[in-house]
């Protein structure tokens, strides 16, 4: 399949890179002219997946987190992957409030947030090999009465 645009990002699994990752993907996504709310949804979903790779996949040890983002027909598709420990049972992991690290004040909300902030969420994981999360979101085309217009008329 060809895409209108595509980018790749790789960084080591340090939590300071969470902000870098979500801001980079948001900057790339802004080519689709998203609303502030759509952009916030994308940033949050990326932050959840990247954080999971760092704290669960690699257990805070050093590894590489990879992100591939593609734009096609008003849709952004984001793949976030690690070569970490993997997830034994993806269906259970996806359940709201399920966490394997409750002692570290995790709420088990990550997958629930990704699922509700994006249009689709797919998780592929093999124990011992790693995890890949693929999410997509359609950015609604703007009509005449778009945000910019409202901003100008309110000014």
């Amino acid at each position, binding site marked *: 399949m060809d895409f209108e645009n595509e980018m790749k990002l790789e960084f080591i699994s340090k939590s300071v890179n969470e*902000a870098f990752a979500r801001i980079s993907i948001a900057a790339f996504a802004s080519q689709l002219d998203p609303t502030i709310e759509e952009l*916030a949804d994308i940033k*949050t979903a990326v932050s959840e997946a990247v*954080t999971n790779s760092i704290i669960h996949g690699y257990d805070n040890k050093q590894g590489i987190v990879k992100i591939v983002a593609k734009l096609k027909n008003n849709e952004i598709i984001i793949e976030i992957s690690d070569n970490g420990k993997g997830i034994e049972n993806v269906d259970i992991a996806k359940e709201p409030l399920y966490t394997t690290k409750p002692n570290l*004040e995790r709420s088990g909300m*990550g997958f629930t947030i990704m699922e509700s902030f994006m249009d689709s969420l797919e998780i592929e994981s093999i124990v011992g090999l790693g995890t890949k999360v693929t999410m997509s979101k359609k950015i609604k085309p703007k009509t005449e009465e778009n945000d910019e217009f409202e901003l100008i008329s309110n000014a």
Partner: protein
Amino acid sequence: METQYYKKDKLLVLKITEEIDDCSVQKIRRKADYEIERYMPKRVVFDFDSVTFMDSAGIGLIIGRYKFTNMLGGKLEVANLTGSIKKIFEMSGILRLIPITTLENISDIEETA
């Protein structure tokens, strides 16, 4: 994070001024717990007015502070939830335990350092 303590009401307002994620949350947690232990407030209000980003780490933070405040005999509230931050709070179900409050009239209350 900016903190203000209003002695008359035994009210501690913790205004978070940074993005809340897994990276920043430890520092916020440490500072919040320090202030809560120092003042032993009856009410603790977390103000989200200046928070430009929050993910699930924020829910963990608030649940943890809720337990800590309760243990010390106080009540925890949250203020100025908007946009995706509000959506995350609603999704988590913790608003059944933690009331949303407004900080509008607080400047009437005398602040004591």
